C-alpha cells in the first residue's frame, strides 16, 4: 500500500508552521539565551532515554502477560518529558493513560505506574505529596478539573499552576471547549497541553476536525495559543516554561499544541496496520524526526555526549527499571476486600455488610482474609 497523500502531507507540511528550536538534524535554529544550560540539556536526554526504555519494557511486559493492556507513548518523549521538566514540584498534573512519561518526570514513582497497568487497586495512587491525578480514561474530562484546581489556586493567591494533558481526539469533545472557555473567563493558571500525535486511535486529525490546527482554537476563547514541534524538547520546554510563568504572573491560560507522533499502537489491543501505513509512516517519523536522535546529534556535535556515556546511561536506566518492576511485582497483591475501601469517607452500612459477606465467602473458599 502506498503512503496516503494525507499522511505525506501531514509528515511534511507542518514543520514550517510550528515553533522549533532544535531541528531534526540537531541544529539550533535560534539562540537559547541561557535558558537551557548544558546540564539541563543532558538531563533532558537522560529523561527521554529513561521514559523510552520504560515504554519499551512495558510493551514487552504486556506481551509476557505480566501487565494488562498498555498504551505506549514511544515517539512522544520530548513532549512529555520537556513539558514536565518545565514545571515546579508544587504544580498540579492531570495526565491521561498515555502520559506516564510526563507523570514520572514530574515525580510519579515508576513502580506505581507498573501497578496501574497490572490493574492493582493501588495503581491509581501517586507519590506521596505530589499533585498528580490518576490517569484520565474518559477523553478531555480532566481539562475542566485543571481549570478548577487552577481557579482555586488563583483565588487563594497560590502560585502553583495546573497542566492538563490530552490528545488531538480530545479537541472534539465538548469538555475541551468548556474548559478553554472557563479558563478564559476566569483567567485561570491552566496549561492545556495537547499532544497532537495525528491519530485518535484510528481516525486521522484531518477527519477529526476541519480546523487546520488545534492551537487556533485558542483564538476563539481569546486565550494564548501556540503550536510547537512536539519532538523538539527545547521548543517544548521553552514554550511550557513561558506558559507556566505567564500563569504564575496571573496572565491566564495557554493552549499548547505539540505536534508529534505515536510510533506504535493506540494500545497493545490495537493494530495500527488496520488504519495506516504503519511501517512506512512510523519509519518516516523515527528516521527523520525522532526526539532522542536529534538531541543526541546536537549533544554529540557539541562534545557533550558520546558512546561511553550512552552505554552508561542505558545500563543505569535499565537497572532502575528492573528495580522498580521488582518493587511492583513484590508489592502485596490486590485483595478483593480493597474494593470496598474509599468509596466514601465513612463506609455506609450496606457497603460494610457487603464487605463482610465477601469476607465470609472468601474465608469459606479457603482464601486467607
Amino acid at each position, binding site marked *: 500500500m502506498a503512503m496516503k497523500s494525507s499522511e505525506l502531507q501531514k509528515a511534511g507540511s507542518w514543520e514550517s508552521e510550528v515553533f522549533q528550536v532544535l531541528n531534526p538534524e540537531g541544529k539550533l535554529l535560534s539562540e537559547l539565551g541561557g535558558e537551557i544550560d548544558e546540564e539541563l540539556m543532558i538531563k533532558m536526554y537522560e529523561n527521554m532515554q529513561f521514559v523510552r526504555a520504560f515504554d519499551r519494557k512495558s510493551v514487552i511486559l504486556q506481551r509476557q502477560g505480566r501487565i494488562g493492556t498498555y498504551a505506549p507513548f514511544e515517539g512522544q518523549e520530548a513532549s512529555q518529558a520537556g513539558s514536565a521538566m518545565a514545571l515546579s514540584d508544587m504544580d498540579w498534573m492531570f495526565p491521561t493513560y498515555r502520559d506516564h512519561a510526563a507523570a514520572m518526570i514530574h515525580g510519579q514513582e515508576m513502580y506505581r505506574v507498573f501497578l496501574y497497568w497490572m490493574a492493582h487497586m493501588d495503581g491509581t495512587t501517586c507519590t506521596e505529596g505530589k499533585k498528580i491525578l490518576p490517569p484520565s480514561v474518559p477523553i478531555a474530562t480532566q481539562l475542566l478539573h485543571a481549570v478548577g484546581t487552577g481557579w482555586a489556586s488563583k483565588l487563594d493567591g497560590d502560585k502553583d499552576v495546573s497542566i492538563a494533558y490530552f490528545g488531538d481526539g480530545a479537541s472534539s469533545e465538548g469538555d475541551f471547549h468548556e474548559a478553554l472557555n472557563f479558563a478564559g473567563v476566569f483567567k485561570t493558571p491552566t496549561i492545556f497541553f495537547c499532544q497532537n500525535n495525528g491519530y485518535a486511535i484510528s481516525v486521522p486529525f484531518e477527519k477529526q476536525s476541519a480546523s487546520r490546527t488545534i492551537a487556533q482554537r485558542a483564538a476563539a476563547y481569546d486565550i494564548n495559543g501556540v503550536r510547537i514541534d512536539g519532538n523538539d524538547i527545547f521548543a517544548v520546554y521553552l514554550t511550557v516554561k513561558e506558559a507556566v510563568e505567564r500563569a504564575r504572573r496571573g496572565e491566564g491560560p495557554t493552549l499548547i499544541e505539540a505536534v508529534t507522533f505515536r510510533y506504535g499502537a493506540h494500545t497493545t489491543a490495537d493494530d495500527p496496520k488496520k488504519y495506516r501505513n504503519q511501517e512506512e509512516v512510523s519509519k518516516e517519523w523515527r528516521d527523520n524526526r525522532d526526539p532522542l536522535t536529534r538531541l543526541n546529534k546536537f549533544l554529540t556535535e557539541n562534545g557533550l555526549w558520546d558512546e561511553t556515556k550512552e552505554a552508561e546511561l542505558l545500563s543505569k536506566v535499565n537497572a532502575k527499571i528492573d528495580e522498580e518492576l521488582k518493587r511492583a511485582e513484590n508489592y502485596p497483591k490486590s485483595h478483593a476486600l480493597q474494593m470496598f475501601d474509599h*468509596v466514601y469517607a465513612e463506609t455506609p452500612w450496606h457497603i460494610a455488610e*457487603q464487605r463482610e459477606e465477601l469476607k465470609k465467602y472468601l474465608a469459606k473458599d479457603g482464601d486467607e482474609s
Partner: protein
Amino acid sequence: MIQAITEVMDQKLAEDPRVMLLGEDIGVNGGVFRATDGLVEKYGEDRVVDTPLAESGIVGTSIGLAMNGKIPIVEIQFLAFIYPAFEQVVSHAARMRYRSRGQFEVPMVIRTPYGAGIRGPELHSESVESFFAHTPGLKVVVPGSPYDAKGLLVSAIEDRDPVIFLEPTKLYRAFKEEVPEELYRVPLGKAKVVKEGTDLTIFSWGAMLREAVNAASKLEKEKGMSCEVVDLRTLYPLDRDTIIESVKKTGRAVVVHEAHKTAGLGGEVISLINDEALIYLKAPVKRITGFDVPVPMFSVEEDYMPTLERVKRGIEETVNF
C-alpha cells in the same frame, strides 16, 4: 456473537438505504471490537461514518438524522463512554416523541459493549443498564446468545423508538452457535426461558446468564435441584408475564446481575413479583449481584462479579429458606 452483530448490520445496510452506522473508529479500523469490520469498504464513508471523538456529538446528530429519515446505528466504544452523550440520550432521544406529541420520532439504535470479565482497563467494564431502564422512552436490550443477538438487533433497528443495545463483551467470542443466515426477528419485550425447572427461577441477562445456567446444571447434578433459568433479554420494558408465570410455577426466585445491587434491576424484578405473585412465594427473592462499589481494577474484578459459587450459594439459601 460479534459475527452475528456484524452480519445484521451488513444485511441491514444492504437492505435499507436509510440505515447508517456512526461511531469512533468504526471505519477502516472496524471498531474496537471489530463489529463493523469490512463494512466501510462495502458501503462507503457516507454510510459507515468514522465520527469525531465526541459522544454527545454522535448521539445528538444521530437524533437529527433519525428525525429526518435515517436509521442511525450508533456504536459507543464502551458503555462508560456514553456519559458525555447522556443528556442527548435522556433529555432528547427518549423524549422527542413525547414532547412533540408524536410529530417527531427517533428510530435509532445505540450499540455498546458493556460488562466486566475481560481484563479491561478502568471504566471499560461498567454495567449501568439501570440508568437507561429508568428512562421512559428508551428500550433497553441485552442479548445473551448469538442467535438472540441477531434477532434482537434486527428488531431494535426496525423499532420506531430509540433502543439501547447492550452487548456483553464477555460473550462476544465466548461460544459458537449456528445462526440462520437470513434476517429474522426476536421480539423486544419478551424474555426467554433458557432452561425449565420447578424448584426455583433464576432471572438473569448478559454475561451472568452463563453463571446462572452453570449453577442450575451443577445444582441439578449435585443436589437434585431443578432450577428454571430466564433470560430477561429486554430490560425495559420488562416481560412481566414471563416473570410472573415462572414464579407462580417455581415459588422461589433469585436475580443474578453484575450491576451494582442498589437500584439495580433486581429490585425492579422483585417488586413485580411482590405486586403480582407474592402469595406464591415460599422464600424471599434474593439478589446476587455486583457489589455497591465502583467496578474495581481487573485484578479483583472476578470477585466483584457474582461468581458461580456465589450464585450457587444464593440459590441454595433460597431453596433451603
